[in-house]
Every structure is written in structure tokens, then in C-alpha cells.
């Protein structure tokens, strides 16, 4: 099994080194802050908070090549039940409608099911970012589709391509086949099927230094291929741009493509995407309870500014007045049709 950058003591396992690279863009690249200033969006301020995205741990059964979390089996950072309880208390005091659970593989957190049940008691919508293969990884996870169904969880899963070659190249040998099997299990309980409210959404991201295609046309292709060849159904496809951080940043720098990719993102800068960037309506919570503007800022350890930084002191009014922190990785969210955890935004 491939080790995480952190376990390898790799230079890109250090957020300080990543920030050093991102904060000193190559010559000719306008800093993101200056770019959004030209269209009246600097400093970037939040809109109403609608989503609490909780990263319940970095442990994962996969070690994907592009992973911005640097997740993997060797990552031991896991959210405790005490921190989850603090999230529940913060949620109860707010009218935030959606809780988006991510990781690592969130299901590997031993308190995952308890946490979901507590959130559902508050009658909030729950999204789980399920990597699919976890469902087959161990008999104790085989009933996850039933658990998801019972709590009407929206399942969002990465499948970088409808070809095994492309998916396995990014997510690991044999991942495509297991993912298809897991999708069929989810379909069997009603996920992604017409006539049910059980949402199964897939996520495409490019397997290299290029931008994603139009979401709508790619969704048609995914639906045709997956239905015809594997009898798999799903609801929506989200096309997400790769952010130049962590493992993907390491890939860009070590292959000599960093400058070219950043320039590509800058050239594709779309001012109309800024109003809808996810950091404006989301608060991201790390495994240890600290608060961030988004999951990417979390991985760069850029804690929120101008508001209490830990969930135990959650102050939604202060958070909604904060300045959102930006660096050059933010170009990933404003390129082309824009990008968020829910796909295109422009």
C-alpha cells in the first residue's frame, strides 16, 4: 500500500512548504487576492452559512494519487466523540440545513454511525462522501447501503471515469471494479433509482493536469456507459477541478507542470463563479474541531480569521462577518464553470 506524504516525511507532507510554494506564484501569475480585487470581491466575505462540512478523520482504505487530504491507511487523525458532540451542540444552536461528512473514509471513524444518528435527530440533511470501496473493504461495512437508506443520507462518491484504466490509475489497482460492485449494492437498496428520494451523486475529477469538461455532457456519457455496461444508475455527476495542493501539488511540481497548470487555471478565471464559491456558504471543521473556510484551507491549516477558531466556541454571527482566507489554490474554484464539492457553480 502506498504511504501518505506525511508518512514518507515528504516535503509536500508539510503544509508550511505547500504554503511557501503557493504564496510565491511563478512570474507573470497574478495573485488570487489581486485578481478578485479587480472584480470587486476582495476581501472575500461569506454569504449565509448553509453547510457544515465535517472532516471526521484522515484515515482511508485508499491512497489516491490526487488526494488533497493526503489520506490513507497510515493516517491516524480521527475525530473523537467529544468533538462530534461539540459539532452537534453548534448545529442545534444554528439553522444550518446540511451536514456534509467527509474524510478520509468517514465510515472508518468508529463513531460515524452514532454521529449520523445524532445529526438526524436534529432533522438536518446529511451528505456522506463515500469512496465506494469501503463498502466492500470489511464485512462490518457491507450493510452501509442499508444504513444510508435508513437515514436518507445523500451519497456522493468519486468515480473519476467510466473506464477502469483511468479510475485505477488515480485511485489504485482494482478500485474501479470494486466501485462498480458498491454502486450496484447502492442501486439494489434504491439509491440512484427513479421513484426513490435516495440520492446517489458521482464526482468526476480530471486524472491529470487538465480541466474538467462540461458537467452536463459528461453526465450523459457517464449515464450511458454505466447503464449499458454495468447496469448502474445514479442521479447527478459533479465535475470538480483538481486543486493544486498536497499530492496533486506534488505531482504538478515533480512533473514540471505546476506553472503551466496554474496558468491554465488563471487563464480560465471566471468572475461569475466567485459569488458561488463554496467557502461563502460552508464552514469546514477539521478532525480536531478547528474551523476553516473550506476543506482545502483545512488541509493547508489556514484556520478561520476574525472569529473563534474552534467548534466548542462556535459563533455563527462572527463567522459570517469574517474575511475568507485565499491563496493561489483558490484559482481551482473559479476556473471555467467553477468548482465546488457540488460540482460546477457558474
Amino acid at each position, binding site marked *: 500500500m502506498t504511504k501518505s506524504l506525511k508518512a514518507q516525511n515528504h516535503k509536500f507532507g508539510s503544509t508550511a512548504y505547500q504554503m511557501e510554494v503557493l504564496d510565491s506564484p511563478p512570474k507573470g501569475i497574478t495573485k488570487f487576492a489581486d485578481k478578485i480585487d479587480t472584480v470587486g470581491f476582495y476581501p472575500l466575505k461569506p454569504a449565509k452559512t448553509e453547510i457544515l462540512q465535517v472532516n471526521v478523520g484522515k484515515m482511508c482504505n485508499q491512497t489516491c494519487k490526487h488526494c488533497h487530504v493526503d489520506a490513507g491507511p497510515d493516517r491516524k487523525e480521527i475525530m473523537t466523540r467529544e468533538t462530534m458532540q461539540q459539532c452537534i451542540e453548534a448545529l442545534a444552536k444554528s439553522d444550518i440545513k446540511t451536514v456534509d461528512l467527509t474524510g478520509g473514509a468517514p465510515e472508518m471513524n468508529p463513531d460515524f454511525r452514532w454521529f449520523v444518528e445524532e445529526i438526524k435527530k436534529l432533522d438536518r440533511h446529511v451528505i456522506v462522501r463515500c469512496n465506494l470501496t469501503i463498502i466492500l473493504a470489511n464485512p462490518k461495512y457491507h450493510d452501509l447501503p442499508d444504513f444510508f437508506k435508513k437515514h436518507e443520507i445523500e451519497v456522493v462518491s468519486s468515480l473519476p*471515469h467510466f473506464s477502469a484504466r*483511468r479510475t485505477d490509475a488515480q485511485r489504485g489497482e482494482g478500485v474501479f471494479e470494486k466501485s462498480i460492485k458498491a454502486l450496484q449494492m447502492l442501486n439494489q437498496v434504491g439509491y440512484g433509482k427513479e421513484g426513490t428520494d435516495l440520492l446517489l451523486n458521482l464526482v468526476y475529477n480530471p486524472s491529470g493536469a487538465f480541466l474538467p469538461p462540461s458537467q452536463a455532457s459528461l453526465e450523459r456519457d457517464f449515464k450511458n456507459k454505466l447503464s449499458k455496461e454495468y447496469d448502474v444508475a445514479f442521479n447527478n455527476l459533479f465535475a470538480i477541478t483538481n486543486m493544486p495542493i498536497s499530492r496533486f501539488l506534488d505531482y504538478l511540481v515533480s512533473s514540471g507542470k505546476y506553472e503551466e497548470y496554474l496558468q491554465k487555471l488563471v487563464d480560465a478565471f471566471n468572475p461569475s463563479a466567485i459569488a458561488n464559491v463554496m467557502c461563502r456558504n460552508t464552514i469546514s471543521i477539521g478532525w480536531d474541531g478547528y474551523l476553516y473556510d473550506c476543506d482545502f484551507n483545512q488541509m493547508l491549516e489556514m484556520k478561520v480569521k476574525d472569529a473563534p477558531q474552534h467548534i466548542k466556541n462556535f459563533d455563527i454571527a462572527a463567522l459570517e462577518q469574517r474575511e475568507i482566507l485565499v491563496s493561489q489554490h483558490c484559482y481551482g474554484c473559479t476556473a471555467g464553470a467553477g468548482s465546488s464539492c457540488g460540482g460546477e457553480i457558474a
Partner: protein
Amino acid sequence: MSKPYYVEEDLKKFGNISEFQPELAKKFFDYYGEVFKEGALSEREKSLIALAVSHAIQCPYCIDAYTTDSLEKGADEAQMMEAIHVTAAIRGGASLVHGVQMMNKTKDLTM
């Protein structure tokens, strides 16, 4: 080391052709942009056709540009290689179909 005939960076300078003749360049690029928009064919289908044609005309700039573009339009390796096999089939077929002419001439000249 001798200077290469094709320079990768020149692809980015394609737009500079307007420097010597702006009116025709504008007409060309406007037309070019329209051609590649989604229509009866999807953007991905058009990109794969462009990739196949790039190999037929053996233009290194076009091959680089439409490999990237095909990936960005969601094509995978199998689709891209099949497009190039279409090029090869047509090029090979174009040679072989002239074999009929050779046969006709041979039959004309021989008893």
C-alpha cells in the same frame, strides 16, 4: 545543439498571426470558435475528429492541442486511440484503394 523546427511555445502564439493580417485572422478565429461549439455533434466528438485530423495532417501543434482538448472534453485513452486508428484506416485505405488503379493498368498492359 541545432534549433528545432517546431517550437512548443509557438502554439501559444497562434493568435499572433493577426499581427500581419488582422481582418482575415479575426474572420478565421471567429469561424474556428463557432465550429467547435456544441451543435449536431458534441464538443467531445468534434475534439476527437480534430485529434484524428491532426494525425492525418501530422501537425505537432494540433496533436498537442487536441490531445489536451480531448482530455478536457472527457475523452479517455481508448477513445483517443480509436480516433487515431480511424486516421490510420483512412490513410491506409486511401493507398490501398489505388491498388485498383494499379490492377486496372496492369490488366490493360498485360495479355
